[in-house]
C-alpha cells in the first residue's frame, strides 16, 4: 500500500510525487490520461517572478524559482539513460538532456513600458518586489533605459519608454518537466517509491468514518495513507467526490507557435508593463498581453490570452489576431513569420486567484494541490515541497494559511 496516492500527472502532481518520495514516502501517481495530458501539456513554461505583486504568491514563486534551479542542476529530471544526442532537444539533433532533461533555461525576462506613466509604475513594482519576502528571497531586477533596451533585445520596436530586466525569470518545457520529475524521482528514490499509472480514472474515495483512506478508480480501489488532489482544472470535481468544496474553474488561454526561425530573434521573455497599472481583474471578458519568447527548438511562442469561456475549444479569430498584433508591435520583424499552430488550454483558477495547498480539515487524509491558474508550472516545485512537509508532519517553510482549502466556506450558499 502506498503512503500517498497523487491524483493527476500534471506538473503539480509530478512535483508533489517527487518531493513526497524524496521525503521517504511511497507514492503512486494516477491519471485518467497520459502524463502531462491536462493543462500542463497545453500551456507555456514561463517561470516568472517578475509578474507578481509582493504577497503569498510571490513567496511561493521565489521559493519555486530556487527549487527549479536545483532540479535542473541536480539532474534529477535526467533519468539514468541518455538518449542519442544531436542539435535539438527531444529530437535526434537535441542535446536531449540539456537543462535537466526538460529544457530549463534561465534566460531572464524583459518587461517593457510603452509610456512614461507605465514606466513609472513598472519601476515602482520592481522596487516593491526587491524589498524581499517572508521566505527570505527577493526579486532581483535592473531598470533599463530606453536607449539600452536593444542591448537586451536587438529586434525590439522603437519608441518604448524603458523597461526592467528580471534575471530570475526562467523557462522549462512543462510536459517534459512533469514526465522527467516522475521518472527521475523513481530512478533516484527507488522504483517502488514512485510509480505512475496512466489510464486510471478516480471515481470516488474510500473512507473510514470521516477520514479518507484511499481512492476508488475504474481499475479498482487503491488504499493509501493519504491522497493528494492534483487534478488541476478538474480539482473541484475531484474534491466533490470526497464531498468537499474547492472552487476551481477553467480560464481559457490560446498560444501561437511560429515556424522555427533559423536565427534566434528573441533572447528573453518579453512582455509589456501595461498590466502593472491595473489591479487584478475579475472580468470574464477577453484579456491579452502577449509574452513573446524564442524556444531552443526554434519556434517563437506567443502567449497567451485569458478568458472565461468554459471548456469551449472553438477558435475566436479575434483572440489570435490580438495576440499576433501585440507580438508584432513588440517585434515588427515577426510580421512576416508564419504561425503554424495555435493551441488552447484551461487554467485552473480560484476566485481569489491563489492556489489551494494543504490538508482539507473537512476530509482528513485528503490534501489539495490545485488551482494554480496561469502559474502552475512556475509554482509546482514549491507546492510539492511544502505539501511533502505537510504530509510528513513537518513545519512548512512557508505559511500555508493563505492557501488553505476551506477558505471559501463563507462564500458557499
Amino acid at each position, binding site marked *: 500500500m502506498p503512503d500517498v496516492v497523487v491524483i493527476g*500527472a500534471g506538473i503539480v502532481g509530478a512535483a508533489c510525487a517527487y518531493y513526497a518520495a524524496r521525503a521517504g514516502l511511497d507514492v503512486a501517481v494516477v*491519471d485518467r*490520461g*497520459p502524463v*502531462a*495530458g491536462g493543462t500542463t*501539456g497545453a500551456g507555456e513554461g514561463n517561470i*516568472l517572478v517578475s*509578474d507578481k505583486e509582493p504577497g503569498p504568491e510571490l513567496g511561493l514563486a521565489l521559493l519555486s524559482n530556487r527549487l527549479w534551479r536545483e532540479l535542473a542542476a541536480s539532474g534529477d529530471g535526467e533519468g539514468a539513460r541518455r*538518449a*542519442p544526442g544531436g542539435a*535539438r532537444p*527531444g*529530437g*535526434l*539533433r537535441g542535446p536531449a538532456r540539456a537543462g535537466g532533461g526538460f529544457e530549463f533555461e534561465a534566460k531572464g525576462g524583459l518587461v517593457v513600458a510603452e509610456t512614461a506613466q507605465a514606466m513609472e509604475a513598472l519601476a515602482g513594482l520592481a522596487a516593491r518586489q526587491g524589498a524581499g519576502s517572508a521566505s527570505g528571497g527577493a526579486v532581483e531586477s535592473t531598470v533599463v533605459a530606453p536607449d539600452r533596451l536593444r542591448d537586451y533585445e536587438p529586434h525590439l520596436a522603437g519608441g518604448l519608454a524603458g523597461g526592467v530586466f528580471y534575471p530570475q525569470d526562467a523557462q522549462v518545457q512543462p*510536459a*517534459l518537466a512533469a*514526465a522527467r520529475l516522475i*521518472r527521475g524521482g523513481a530512478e533516484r528514490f527507488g522504483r517502488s517509491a514512485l510509480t505512475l499509472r*496512466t489510464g486510471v480514472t478516480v471515481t470516488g474515495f474510500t473512507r473510514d468514518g470521516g477520514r479518507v483512506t484511499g481512492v476508488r478508480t475504474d481499475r479498482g480501489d487503491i488504499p493509501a495513507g493519504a491522497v493528494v488532489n492534483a487534478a488541476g482544472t478538474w480539482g473541484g470535481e475531484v474534491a466533490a467526490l470526497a464531498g468537499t468544496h474547492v472552487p476551481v474553474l477553467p480560464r481559457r488561454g490560446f498560444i501561437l507557435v*511560429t515556424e*522555427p526561425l533559423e536565427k534566434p530573434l528573441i533572447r528573453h521573455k518579453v512582455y*509589456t508593463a501595461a*498590466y502593472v497599472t491595473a*489591479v*487584478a*481583474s475579475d*472580468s470574464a471578458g477577453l*484579456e*491579452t*498581453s*502577449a*509574452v513573446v519568447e524564442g524556444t531552443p527548438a526554434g519556434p517563437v511562442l*506567443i*502567449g*497567451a490570452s485569458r478568458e472565461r469561456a468554459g471548456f469551449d475549444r*472553438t477558435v475566436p*479569430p*479575434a483572440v*489570435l*489576431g*490580438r495576440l*499576433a*498584433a*501585440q*507580438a*508584432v*508591435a513588440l517585434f515588427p520583424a515577426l*510580421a*512576416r*513569420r*508564419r*504561425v*503554424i*499552430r*495555435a493551441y488552447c488550454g484551461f487554467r485552473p483558477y480560484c476566485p481569489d486567484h491563489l492556489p489551494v495547498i494543504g490538508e482539507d480539515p473537512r476530509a482528513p487524509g485528503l490534501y489539495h494541490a490545485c488551482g494554480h491558474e*496561469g*502559474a502552475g508550472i*512556475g509554482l509546482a516545485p514549491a507546492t510539492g515541497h511544502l505539501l511533502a512537509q505537510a504530509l510528513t508532519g513537518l513545519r512548512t517553510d512557508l505559511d500555508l494559511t493563505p492557501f488553505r482549502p476551506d477558505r471559501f466556506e463563507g462564500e458557499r450558499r
Partner: protein
Amino acid sequence: MTPEYDLAVIGGGPAGVAGALTASLAGLAVVLVDAAPRLGGQYFRRLPAGFRAARPGALHHAPGGLDRFTRQCEGLAARADVLTGHRVWTAGREEADGTVTVRCLEGDREERPRTVTARRLLIATGAYDLPLPFPGWDLPGVLTAGGAQALLKGDLVVAGRRVVVAGTGPFLLPVAAGLAAAGAHVLGVHEAAGRFGLARHPLLAAGKAGEALGYGLRLARHRVPYRGRQAVIEAHGEHGLTHVTIADLDHDWRPLATRTVACDTLATGYGFVPRIDLAVQLGCALRGDHGGQGGHGSPVVAVDAGMRTSVPGVYAAGETTGVGGAVLAEAEGRLAGRSAAADLGRRVPPDPALSRRRDRLAAFARALRESYPVRPGWQEWLRDETPVCRCEEVPLAAVREARALGASDARSVKLLSRAGMGWCQGRMCGYAVSCLAGEADGPGGSPPAPRRTIAQPVRLGDLAGLAPDSPAGGSAPPASPSPEGPPR
C-alpha cells in the same frame, strides 16, 4: 452583416466542383475556394497550362471522366466565383445567424488575406497520402503514391526510371499503370494485403472490380508483376535511392523472407487520411472509419443522407466523409449542393436515383477499405534510429522513450518527443505516431482526430489584421493594456 454568398465551397476536386455547380444551377450564389492554382483536386490535377500530353488517356484511365470534369468547371466558372490559389487557414460559424466566415491567404511571396462570408459551407477538402515509415523512407527517390501521381501529371519526367510500387489498396494499380504508360520501367507492384483481398469481398464481385481488372490487364500488358503479401521494408542508398528490400509478409505484415531489388524510384501508399481540420475547427461530429478487423482507420466527418454534418448549415462531401474515389466524391458533391439549395428554400426536385447511387458507391468504398486494412506488423519494419517524424527528425527510439515516460496517445508523444510538432504538423507522421503511441489498440481501432486550430500556416502580420482593434494587418497598434497581468 449580410453574407456575400449563399454557399462557400472549400475544395475544387470532383466533390467540391460538383457541389458548387449543382448549387449554382439551383439558383444559389456560390463561391469555390481552392489552394491549388487550378481546379481538379487529387484526381483531376491538371497539367500545367499549355502542356499537351502525347497520350492523354495514359494519364487518366477514364478520359471521359476528365472531359466531364472539364465541362463542369466551365459551367461553374460561368455561374459562380472561383478563387483558385487561395489557401483557407480557418473557418468559423456565427452561432446567432449561422453565417460562415472562411479566411484565406492568396499568393505566395506577397501573401494577401481574403475573407469570404456565406450562409452555408461545403467542406470538400479531400484527403492526403498515408505513408508508413520504414528505414530509408526519407531518401531522395522515395515518393508517396500521390506524389508519384503528381509527378506523372505534372512534369512527366518518369520515362526510363526504374520504379517499385508498394503499399496497399486499389489506388496502387492506377499509379503503377500510369507510370508504366508514361514510359517508366515498373519493376513490380507489391500489395501488402493478400493479392485477392479485393476479389474475395462479396460486394466487390460486381461493379468496380471490373475497373480493377482493367488495371490488372493494363499492368499485364506492360509486364508488371503484381504480388500480394509483400512490402518494401527498407530503402537503401547513399545520397539517393539505389535499391530496396522487399519482404514477404505474414498475415499481420510481419516480415518473413527478404530480397533486394535495384531501383531509382519507390512509390509507396498505405491509404489516405481525410483532410478534416476545418470540420474539426467547426465542431463537426466525426466517426471512425474502420479498416476492418484489426485494421486501423482514420476519423472522417459524419454526415446524413443529404451530406449534412452535425453543425447546422455545414456540409461535407468527397474524401472528407470517407475515402471512396472520384466517382463517389462527385455524387456526394451533387447531393450536398442539392441539400444546401433545398435548405435555403430553393425548389429541388427529388432525385432518388442519385441517392441510391451514392449509397451503392459508398458501400462499395467501405468494402474496399475493409479489404485493405493497415496491419500492425509494419511497426516491426522500423529500427531504433528510423525517423518517424521527418520534420523534427524524431527517431523511433525517442517515441519509445516518450511512451516509457508515460505518454499514451499521439498528443503526449508529441509533447515529449516533438514527433508531429514541425512544419507539417503531423500530417505526414500523425497516423504512424498514433499507432506507435498505442492509440489504435483499444476497441474501435480508430485514433482520434488531432486538433489543428490553423489549417495552413499564416503570417503573424496577416493574423494581426484580425484583431478587433487593429486597422490593418502588419501595422498593428501597440499592445492593448491588459488589466490583469501578463499572460502566463
